[in-house]
């Protein structure tokens, strides 16, 4: 038995207080009036002896109370075998199940070692199982039930996610706040170097967490992988389609690999590629002959390494006919269809075919036939067509409105709904024109157009921009390009014309990428080329208020969204590598190829020094290895552990307080009665 804070015994001097109060201090009692003392005799000695006799019980209780208080502060303890001590220590086992753990038998080794640590813990010790994939996932609740803990470890499955040890430290920091007592953390991982966070300080764990690392891989393993694929998402002309891929080798010797292009499960092209030692090589397939509709494609290599899961990179391609674009203009305007049509034909890989129609002949046209519609300085539309066009936009359609001098004479932009404040003729200015002063490079219509530098604008309609996003402004602040979402669709407003009269933008080189990107943007055909990474998010709908059901089919053919999620989910996280089938809220079908993050393909492990530093053993002598980590931790638990007795002392003190109160109250009660 010992005391954790023996210096508190100095407080034993406080025992003098009750001694002084009871024995040294003169007893005072309240005198009581009486009619006459003629029949009384003083019996002082007898009364004092009696009083001391009775108060000794109270004195003893108070002395005991003070002594127990001092004892509690001194924190007595006894040494008991650690195995028999039921402490509030929590054993936390974290198994890495990131993509790299698919290599060889890493995950199986990690689970086996975790089971071994679990079996060696004291029977009464609670434990909890976590898996580290894209984040820290609890596989069980804190419990001392060995069977459920073993089941939780067995339930850890490999994932395609990219792990990050920073997530582990971050999760443990928040987890430890909700746990009382120390945490004994055991981490079973391949200790992949690429999973280290950018800063080593991000690995810092709370002081109450003791970390024991269990590396299941001690050396680097050679691995080849298809690092990236560059392929179009949509194909209108198979002759123009190209597929480029990068083959990477990690810790590999120079070798020749065979790269194959697989379309819908059939290998359509094969190439040999020389991959330098620990380097990269490019491979290009000049034809992508896929059928109409969506095709599931992959670039695959024959690596015969320990991690075959990264030997293929998936991507989906949609082949379709060119989509129709409706271009409405005033009958007198013959210039703008030419400029816009030529720009559209020169770009967009033959994705669109433009149909030019005068506005007064549009009453019988169904807008839903067109990928998007352009209104070139059209001041008025047939009312029936305008109503159809409005429904078309709200249903997800796209419209580009160019405001020339005709619209400058009206008070409101049709469909877009913005009030026209005034029409500005810059030809009267000393310079004769204005240029673009401010442009949002993140807007799709401007991103590839080099901010329209050099384009001269002689005329612009100044509109009220409230409720819309201004993508570009002239140098005087006049909004030049506005983007507005209406329902599921959107409308772009160019406050100048497309006819080369109100500006020279159609003659400018930036006009072609502007038209191309605007066409893809408004038609919704800007589907990403190549593939997505595991862990990234897909946008399922664009407006919260629409309760249209979406559908997601994962690579295993399951529908992971519940009915409620299907009507409310805005996004969906892609968790597995393979092909996802989507039906989005706007009714469009899509197929997405998903690949694991190729940083997981680099199977290089952390150095022993780094591991020792993380585990808090800087000298490296106790650097955990697969062989010695568990016995070392076991050796620690077999020692004697101090078992504090302060709780029992406090319990006895509580009983003493009750007894003291009872005895003291009896004395006071007698006095009150008298």
């Amino acid at each position, binding site marked *: 038995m010992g005391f954790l804070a023996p210096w508190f015994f100095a407080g034993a001097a406080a025992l003098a207080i009750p001694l002084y109060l009871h024995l040294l201090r003169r007893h005072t*009692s*309240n*005198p*009581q*009036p*009486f*009619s*006459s*003392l*003629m*029949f*009384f*005799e*003083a*019996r*002082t000695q*007898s*009364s*004092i002896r*009696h*009083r001391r006799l*009775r108060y000794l019980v109270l004195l003893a209780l108070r002395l005991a109370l003070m002594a127990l208080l001092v004892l509690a502060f001194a924190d007595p303890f006894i040494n008991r075998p650690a195995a028999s001590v039921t402490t509030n220590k929590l054993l936390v086992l974290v198994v890495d199940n990131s993509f790299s753990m698919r290599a060889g038998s890493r995950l199986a080794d990690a689970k086996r070692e975790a089971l071994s640590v679990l079996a060696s813990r004291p029977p009464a010790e609670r434990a909890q199982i976590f898996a580290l994939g894209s984040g820290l996932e609890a596989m069980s609740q804190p419990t001392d039930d060995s069977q459920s803990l073993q089941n939780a470890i067995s339930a850890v499955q490999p994932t395609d996610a990219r792990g990050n040890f920073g997530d582990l430290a971050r999760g443990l920091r928040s987890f430890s706040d909700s746990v009382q007592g120390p945490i004994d953390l055991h981490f079973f991982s391949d200790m992949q170097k690429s999973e280290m966070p950018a800063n080593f300080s991000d690995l810092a764990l709370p002081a109450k967490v003791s970390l024991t690392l269990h590396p299941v891989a001690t050396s680097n393993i050679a691995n080849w992988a298809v690092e990236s694929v560059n392929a179009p998402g949509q194909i209108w002309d198979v002759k123009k389609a190209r597929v480029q891929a990068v083959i990477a080798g990690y810790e590999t010797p120079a070798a020749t690999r065979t790269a194959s292009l697989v379309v819908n499960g059939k290998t359509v092209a094969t190439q040999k590629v020389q991959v330098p030692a620990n380097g990269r090589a490019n491979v290009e397939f000049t034809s992508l002959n896929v059928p109409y509709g969506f095709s599931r494609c992959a670039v695959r290599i024959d690596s015969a390494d320990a991690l075959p899961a990264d030997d293929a990179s998936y991507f989906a391609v949609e082949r379709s006919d060119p989509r129709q674009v409706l271009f409405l203009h005033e009958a007198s305007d013959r210039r703008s269809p030419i400029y816009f049509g030529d720009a559209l034909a020169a770009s967009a890989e033959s994705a669109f075919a433009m149909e030019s129609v005068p506005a007064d002949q549009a009453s019988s046209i169904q807008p839903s036939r067109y990928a998007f519609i352009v209104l070139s300085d059209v001041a008025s539309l047939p009312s029936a067509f305008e109503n159809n066009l409005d429904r078309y936009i709200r249903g997800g359609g796209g419209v580009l409105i160019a405001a020339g001098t005709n619209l400058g004479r009206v008070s409101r932009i049709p469909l877009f709904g913005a009030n026209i404040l005034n029409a500005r003729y810059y030809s009267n200015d000393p310079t004769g024109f204005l240029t673009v002063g401010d442009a949002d490079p993140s807007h799709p219509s401007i991103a590839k157009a080099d901010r329209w530098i050099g384009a001269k604008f002689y005329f612009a309609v100044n509109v009220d921009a409230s409720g819309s996003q201004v993508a570009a402004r002239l140098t005087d602040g006049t909004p030049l390009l506005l983007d507005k979402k209406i329902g599921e669709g959107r409308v772009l407003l160019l406050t100048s014309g497309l006819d080369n009269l109100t500006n020279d933008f159609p003659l400018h080189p930036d006009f072609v990428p502007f038209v191309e990107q605007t066409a893809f943007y408004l038609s919704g055909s800007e589907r990403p080329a190549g593939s997505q990474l595991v862990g990234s998010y897909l946008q399922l709908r664009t407006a919260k208020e629409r309760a249209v059901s979406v559908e997601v089919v994962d690579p295993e053919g399951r529908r992971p969204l519940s009915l409620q999620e299907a009507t409310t989910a805005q996004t969906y996280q892609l968790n597995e590598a393979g092909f996802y089938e989507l039906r989005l809220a706007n009714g469009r079908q899509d197929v997405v190829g998903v690949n694991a993050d190729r940083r997981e393909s680099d199977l290089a492990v952390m150095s022993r020094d780094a591991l020792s530093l993380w585990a808090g053993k800087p000298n490296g002598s106790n650097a955990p290895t697969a062989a010695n980590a568990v016995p070392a931790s076991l050796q620690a638990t077999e020692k004697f552990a101090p078992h504090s007795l302060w709780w029992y002392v406090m319990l006895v003190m509580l009983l003493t307080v009750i007894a003291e109160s009872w005895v003291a109250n009896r*004395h006071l009660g*007698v*006095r009150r*009665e*008298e």
Partner: protein
Amino acid sequence: MQRFLDPAVLARISNLDLIAKTVVDGFVAGLHRSPDFGFSQEFAEYRAYSPGDDLRHVDWNVFARTERAYLKRYRGETNSLLTILLDASSSMNYSSHSVSKIDYARFVAASLFYMAIQNQRDAAGLIVFDDEVRNYIRPSTRFGQLHRLLAGLEHAEPRARTDFAKPLHHFQQFLRRRGLVLVLSDFFEPPENVIRTVEPLRFHGNEVVLFHVLDPRELQPQLGEPVVLVDSETSQRMEVTPEYAHNDYRQKIDAHVEELSSRARGAGIDYFLLRTDRPLDSALAEYLTIRQERN
């Protein structure tokens, strides 16, 4: 004032039918027989004349027939004189419950005043004393006497200490007429001093009654632990043990009561112990009953 005249108390005393039957001199005026042969109509006896007798009392008819002079004596009905001596020393202020000794004494005195004046037309007076005479209300049957007496009781607040010897000569001075003298006190004096002080009143033909008013805790003190007691008259402090209070004190106070009672009887003085926890009407009824039987 009304608190002294509790109708319930007085009604129960009247129901004892003492008014019609008792002849206690002066206690219930009008119907009580006088302790002296006087000059009223009811014949008592003849006595031979002796020199010095008042010739007006000679029965001349008997003298004419017998030539002997006899005095005719009667049991006359006459108003008596009630005087209450109330001890208003500080010790009378003691109480262990809701009624202090001085209050209890006030109740007794007020009840007796009421009976004497309202019911029996007796003259009644009051002397309030401690170590001197603090208030004196001459016995009278005048209208408003009862109110004066009750007011005198009302103002009899305890103070100072009891001293029977000092106001004695005042008692002698005030009590020139014979009658009933009631002394209400706790008599925390040696019994011989009390009797020696009160006995001269008896010599003047007064009937003296001692009402010994004591609190039950004065007779049987109960102490749970040693306490310091303070004498209410002398402010003397004394630490007292429960054992002494339970044993020795009780023996002493009992001996004191017994001695006072026996000495009073020996001096021809009536003695009644009044405990303040005893119902007032019960105590008075007992007193009157005893007096009725005695007479």
